[in-house]
């Protein structure tokens, strides 16, 4: 072991054995990282992961074996590492890093934090905690053959949220419910259906025809037809899909007839939708057995129903792509809907990939990235921040024969809504249509990454709009913002106590948001020009290895899977940027001046994803 620290300076080698580091995540990168840390001489390591071990982890997460399936990742990782390095002092937490127990004080226990995460929400959160505690953070991610590592240090480098990340594709509700045009729309619908029938019901995951579709624009004559049509499904509309399904005893034939026949006939009455589109074709139960394997939906429904009954009264199933009955059900339902809308059906393998946002993952890429992380960690502990790099791993050596593309770290974005000294953000919304609950859940939590916000209105009185204490402001939840005197130009102060983060939110009232858009984040502060909408290519931290069963089940967590790694081969700046910081700065400037080019590239990549397996499709 002594030989291994040979190339390190003595002070650095000594500091390895005395310092304390935190590894967030014990998955693909985490396993490799823990091994590299102890073998490099790190002694005091804490590791946290809320996940348990799944069979599909075993092709790369080498600290786990078949006998460990179902157990805590953090705990088993610790035990496996201690087997080959008994002298290490490892603490394992089977928990979410977003739990309030892990406050700024907790983060201050460490000299260094290393992320080995698979989702953006947790990455945002750890970024903020490290900024608040002023602890350096090493951020990393992999997707298939691609990977990247970067170093974040408060005040010296960009933070994780300095550059806008490309948002994942979302689909308007009426596309999912009324007018699917691509297989992915049907797959999203089928996942919603699973939750409606067997899982947690969510009003945003309706599967029945959407009569409020602005495209439909009922006129009085149509309204009459609609009334007749909706009589047919009588009570169905008034109770929840789940209750109705339960009342029929999950009768597969009744379910089938409602979803693939009656609902479709109802859609047909919305004839405006079909003027320019090919109209859907209702299916007949007696005919579906001709559709081959998808006719087995009957069996899948029965299996899931008995699972539900087994779990007892009020139980809910959680959709998991690695759970065969759940996956089979979604495959069948999605394919039936594709058939209804005259699309080519998809194999189970492909549906799984899309429904589960599967990011291919292999041992080799994680090993490479974890190796790079430790090298950046050594420089960070030495406070050599000018030596630290953002490193991109390519699929194969690029045209300049480089497999690795190192780039100098950028200074913080002065307008960043997270790490600026007085963070501000501007949000455009309709104050008459946005309720407080939506402000809290969709804007502050989901979009702006807060965990438990407190919000007061800067109206001179300091009216409390949202309190993170339970029960204090619940009564406000369903009221509109305008009910509190909020209007164009109002300012809100949002605090997150856990993240030690205060954000000033400037509101712009707008009646002209696009259909299905509830709000838009338009920039940092109203007096500044909106931030350039061109995220730097190759600058996106990959969300790696999102294959844990649990988080990708709910639609909220699934959105985390939005990896859009752009092959840095394509990128003019980073591929020419590996020598001295001076030259890279020059290149960077050049690149900035060249945003048009970058924008068109981005567009092209978005529109024509290469026909590779590792293209990641993000949904809902």
């Amino acid at each position, binding site marked *: 072991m002594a030989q291994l620290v040979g190339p390190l300076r003595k002070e650095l080698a000594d500091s390895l054995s005395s310092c304390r580091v935190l590894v967030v995540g014990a998955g693909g990168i985490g396993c490799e990282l823990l091994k590299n840390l102890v073998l490099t001489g790190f002694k005091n390591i804490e590791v946290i992961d809320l996940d348990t071990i799944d069979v599909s982890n075993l092709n790369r997460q080498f600290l786990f074996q078949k006998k460990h399936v179902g157990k805590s990742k953090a705990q088993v990782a610790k035990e496996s590492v201690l087997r080959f390095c008994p002298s290490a002092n490892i603490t394992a937490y089977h928990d979410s890093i977003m739990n309030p127990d892990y406050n700024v004080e907790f983060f201050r226990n460490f000299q260094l934090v290393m992320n080995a995460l698979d989702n953006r929400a947790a990455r945002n959160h750890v970024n903020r905690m490290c900024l608040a505690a002023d602890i350096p953070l090493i951020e990393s991610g992999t997707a298939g053959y691609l990977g990247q590592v970067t170093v974040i240090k408060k005040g010296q480098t960009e933070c994780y949220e300095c550059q806008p990340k490309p948002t994942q594709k979302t689909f308007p509700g009426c596309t999912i419910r009324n007018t699917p045009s691509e297989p992915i729309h049907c797959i999203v619908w089928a996942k919603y259906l699973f939750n409606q029938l067997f899982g947690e019901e969510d009003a945003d995951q309706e599967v029945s025809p959407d009569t409020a579709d602005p495209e439909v624009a009922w006129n009085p004559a149509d309204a009459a037809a609609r009334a007749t049509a909706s009589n047919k499904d009588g009570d169905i509309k008034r109770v929840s899909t789940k209750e109705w399904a339960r009342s029929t005893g999950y009768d597969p034939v009744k379910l089938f007839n409602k979803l693939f026949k009656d609902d479709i006939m109802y859609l047909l009455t919305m004839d405006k939708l079909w003027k320019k589109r090919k109209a859907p074709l209702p299916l007949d139960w007696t005919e579906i057995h001709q559709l081959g394997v998808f006719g087995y939906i009957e069996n899948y429904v029965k299996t899931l129903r008995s699972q539900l009954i087994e779990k007892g009264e009020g139980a809910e199933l959680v959709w998991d792509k690695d759970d065969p009955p759940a996956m089979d059900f979604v495959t069948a339902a999605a394919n039936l809907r594709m058939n209804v809308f005259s699309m080519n059906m998809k194999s189970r393998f492909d549906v799984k990939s899309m429904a589960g946002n599967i990011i291919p993952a292999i041992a080799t890429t994680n*090993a490479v990235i974890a190796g*790079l992380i430790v090298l950046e960690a050594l420089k960070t502990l030495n406070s050599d921040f000018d030596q630290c790099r953002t490193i991109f791993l390519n699929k194969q050596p690029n045209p300049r024969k480089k497999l690795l593309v190192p780039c100098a770290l950028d200074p913080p974005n002065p307008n960043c809504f997270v790490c600026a000294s007085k963070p501000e953000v501007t949000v455009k919304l309709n104050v008459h249509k946005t309720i407080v609950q939506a402000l809290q859940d969709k804007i502050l939590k989901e979009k702006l990454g807060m965990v438990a916000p407190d919000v007061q209105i800067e109206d001179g009185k300091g009216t409390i709009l949202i309190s993170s204490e339970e029960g204090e402001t619940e009564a406000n939840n369903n009221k509109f913002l305008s009910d509190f005197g909020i209007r164009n130009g109002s300012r809100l102060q949002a605090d997150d106590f856990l993240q030690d983060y205060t954000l000033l939110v400037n509101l712009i009232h707008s009646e002209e948001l696009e259909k299905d858009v509830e709000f838009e984040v338009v920039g940092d502060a109203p007096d500044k020009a909106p931030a350039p909408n061109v995220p730097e290519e190759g600058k996106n931290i990959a969300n790696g290895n999102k294959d844990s069963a649990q988080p990708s089940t709910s639609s909220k967590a699934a959105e985390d899977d939005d990896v859009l790694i752009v092959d840095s081969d394509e990128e003019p700046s980073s591929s020419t940027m590996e020598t001295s910081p001076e030259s890279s700065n020059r290149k960077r400037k050049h690149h900035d001046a060249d945003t048009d080019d970058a924008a068109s590239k981005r567009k092209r990549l978005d529109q024509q994803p290469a026909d590779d397996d590792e293209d990641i499709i993000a949904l809902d």
Partner: protein
Amino acid sequence: MTDHKTSKEQKYDRQLRLWGDHGQEALENAHVCLINATATGTEILKNLVLPGIGAFTIVDGHKVHWPANHCLVFNRAQAATELLQELNSDVSGNFVEESPDKLLDNDPEFFHRFSLVIGVQLPESTCLRLGSVLWDAGVTFLVCRTYGLIGYMRLIVKEHTVIESHPDNALEDLRLDQPFTELKHHIESYDLDSMAKKDHSHTPWIIVVAKYLEKWYSEHNSQLPKNYKEKEAFRQLIREGILTNENGKPEDEENFEEAIKNVNTALNPTKVPSATEDIFNAEQCENITSQSPSFWVMAQGVRDFVRNEGNGKLPVRGTIPDMIADSDKFIKLQNVYRDKAMKDAAVVSKHVEALLQSVGKPPESISEQKIKLFCKNAAFLRVVHCRSLAEEYSMDTFNKDEITSCMDSTDSEMVLYLMLHSVDRFYQQHSRYPGVYNYQVEEDINNLKLCVNSLLQEYSLNVNVKDDYIHEFCRYGAAEPHTVAAFLGGSAAQEAIKIITHQFVPFNNTFLYNAMSQTSATFQL
């Protein structure tokens, strides 16, 4: 049995999406030999055991101590084999407790049985000896080395064929410049002028381009739009075809927009890419024997197709990109391409069958499926030839140009290559690497400098190696830091998988990694 299959599918799900069932099968049929289970060696093997390589054999004569108790001594080969096997019960692990030199003395044929031999931290003499045995036996050899903060890999394979090279930006194979009969008929079945608006805006862009191309031909002597100006005029021609509403404003026809956007790539002349042409002209393609690998038999089959039925063109690939169209029209168009691809592949099959028969092999020795895959990838075939180690080291054949031209730029990774050679030279003279013992570092710096100079002199290299590198390499003391080993373990296993699955193109032939600056480079040496 089926249970075993599904559990395997589950376990390997995330990687099957990269290399497919057939890639996995190739992996499971492979037997890899690792020489020296050092940090780098075990990292590489770990990354092959996890994805489910068929079998491995560790060759290693060293002993190890259990860190907590120095009295417990193990054979490194055995200890590593047992621990690696824990990672995946599907893999069969074997070990030989002997040094590679001894094996080379007593049983050089031992190494012939492997799909791939990975040599780690080998002294130069062993490396060259083993290299020549494997070169003669046609076994692929991957040399890996972690030296302080430097990583090095060298791939030695006489010939490596790749059917699925997974190119990044492949052009579609649409044949709009030379439509085949079935495509022509299909295009004729459309009449854009007499269509209802709904159909008009749901016609696939391929048809739109084809239709306006006919128009263009009639006005331009049947010549394709070639330069920018002509293509722009052609785009305008398409633009004018967009329907207008009652006010004379153009309608929103996304399929036409798509057609305009795709003009550039759609009009690319259909031709056999030069890399594929080179393969057709290769000697191996000319002289098929009963020993010929299936790649070359199929290559000749495709070549015969191109020269006869194909009229100079490769078999149709049979896939088209996603586009705006109603499903019915899209599927019909897709089928036109797909059916033609199947027909072409069937003709290639006939050629392959005849070839196999002519060399006395059963026609079914190459499956229909494999021929289809080959035809689909005919435009992306790759053959990698690496130079042997003997060629790299010989005074007459070493790649002086590459070395000197790289050394022109400061801090090229090439200097690391020269330094690795120099420490090998040091090893020859002193039977140890420089800087291994702290008290000798100063002395070693001078000696290593002499090695560098004698190396440059011997190869008449008029280049400058900075003293910094000499100090740095002495400082390394030939250590194998784990984190560098981890990096190299990932990279080397990735190359091993490329080689075993014959998918993606491996590097050719030298890879250098500098962990100090986080840079890397590949060279042909």
